[in-house]
């Protein structure tokens, strides 16, 4: 590396530095650091999780401790205050770190906790404000939904080639929205995933609609995920929109997963293959959801956390029927082998499957652009509410 400006070594200004260790900005910097951190956590007798590479687990007679790592941010959790203090002190002996005490913020999530009520509020309000300012949308007209009800974007015409300016602008809007969506805003998941399909060649129309989502954030900057505990069961809602993509006829899968009352996981995605019926689309969607349940189960086992009941709910009786019964009727014959994985999960009783009426469905908004009334109902069912500062 060249010598830094203002600190050239007198008489050796032609020489360069050979780097023995990583420095900020180097391509391999993050990895090099992560390897060191990994080693020192193993030395402190933590076990590395297989289901999430950022999680380290310690257990002994005094209790359980979990250490979550995201580059240089650490989150420490334990059911024993003594154990947490002991391990933290040992860690601080090896690493120079700011000890920030009881959690208030992690990965840009603002965290407010009420220990008496055992509740928690999570939001990204400061980041949302930053996004609004960046795109100069602080004082725009309010909108009630992320995208207009039933809106269907269309791909750019064949001869259209997006200018680098619009492409860059578009990608930056979608990037900011993705971060908020993945963090604490399931209500924009469908809209963001939909619009992110046009990243490669966005038109002016696409940009306007992506900014519509930003406007929606501007109209609802105070929405926060509210955790209030409840039973320690995992309730998963699966839904699909058959042939929802008007151009390709692909269907959309969506799910929302609750730990007790708390929404912890959500996803919206366009299915990779065409479904021939709404039953098939729903069946595929339930498979996506099942994979996520299996992963959560593994994570909890590794962390020594007990979770008793696993439920999946769908609103398509036909799909539930083929999942629960070894039927092989003509119309379901073609469903790809990999999707029979769902039937196997049910046979092994990894989770139970049950019917939920459409009006109690909690994953509707993951699969389509709803009308305001339905959107609002669904949003309330996610415990996504305004926070009081």
């Amino acid at each position, binding site marked *: 590396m060249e010598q830094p400006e203002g600190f050239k070594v007198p008489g050796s200004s032609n020489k360069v530095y050979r780097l023995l260790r990583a420095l900020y900005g180097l391509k*391999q910097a993050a990895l090099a*650091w992560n390897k060191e951190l990994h080693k020192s956590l193993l030395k402190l007798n933590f076990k590395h999780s297989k289901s999430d590479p950022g999680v380290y687990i310690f257990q002994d007679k005094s209790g359980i401790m979990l250490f979550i790592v995201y580059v240089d941010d650490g989150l420490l959790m334990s059911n*024993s205050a003594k154990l947490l203090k002991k391990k933290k002190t040992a860690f601080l002996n090896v690493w120079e770190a700011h000890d920030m005490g009881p*959690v208030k913020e992690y990965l840009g999530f603002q965290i407010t906790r009420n220990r008496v009520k055992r509740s928690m509020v999570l939001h990204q309000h400061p980041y949302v404000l930053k996004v609004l300012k960046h795109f100069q949308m602080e004082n725009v007209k309010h909108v009630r939904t992320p995208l207009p009800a039933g809106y269907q974007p269309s791909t750019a015409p064949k001869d259209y080639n997006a200018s680098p300016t619009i492409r860059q602008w578009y990608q930056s809007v979608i990037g900011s929205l993705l971060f908020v969506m993945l963090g604490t805003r399931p209500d924009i998941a469908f809209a963001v995933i939909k619009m992110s399909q046009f990243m490669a060649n966005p038109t002016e129309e696409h940009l306007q609609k992506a900014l519509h989502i930003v406007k929606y954030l501007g109209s609802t900057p105070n929405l926060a995920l509210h955790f209030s505990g409840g039973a320690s069961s995992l309730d998963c809602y699966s839904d699909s929109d058959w042939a929802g993509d008007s151009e390709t006829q692909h269907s959309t899968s969506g799910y929302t997963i609750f730990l007790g009352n708390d929404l912890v996981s959500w996803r919206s995605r366009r299915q990779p293959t065409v479904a021939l019926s709404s039953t098939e689309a729903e069946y595929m969607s339930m498979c996506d959801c099942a994979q996520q349940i299996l992963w959560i189960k593994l994570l909890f086992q590794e962390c020594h956390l007990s979770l008793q009941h696993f439920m999946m709910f769908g609103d398509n009786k036909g799909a539930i029927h083929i999942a629960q019964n070894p039927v092989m009727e003509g119309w379901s014959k073609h469903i790809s082998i990999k999707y029979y994985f769902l039937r196997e999960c049910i046979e092994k009783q990894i989770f139970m499957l049950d019917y939920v009426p459409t009006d109690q469905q909690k994953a509707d908004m993951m699969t389509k652009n709803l009308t305001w009334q339905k959107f609002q109902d669904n949003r309330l069912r996610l415990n996504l509410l305004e926070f009081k500062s």
Partner: protein
Amino acid sequence: MEEQKKWEQACKEEIKSIEDRNVWTLVDCPPDRKPVKCHWVFAKKLDGRFKARLVAKGFSQIYGEDYDETFSPVTHFETVRLLLAYVCQNDWEIESLDVKTAFLYG
């Protein structure tokens, strides 16, 4: 004038921190290699501290010549929400920390 001195001081501290950790040694540049450039990043912290950080311009590195492995595993947001929800229900202790001069350790 006062500020300039503080920035100079901050740079000196950063260089000292780098040298204390034996991050580099001064050598002649091998004839077939091009040194990576670096620059200073300055930040005034909320608590009034002046922080200077020396940053390598990693984008000028060439894959296979200057580096090979880069992937660094990170946690999923879902994991954070799942565990927070569970431990909050069960009234566990939750604390956070932020490791300093993170990349100097590798």
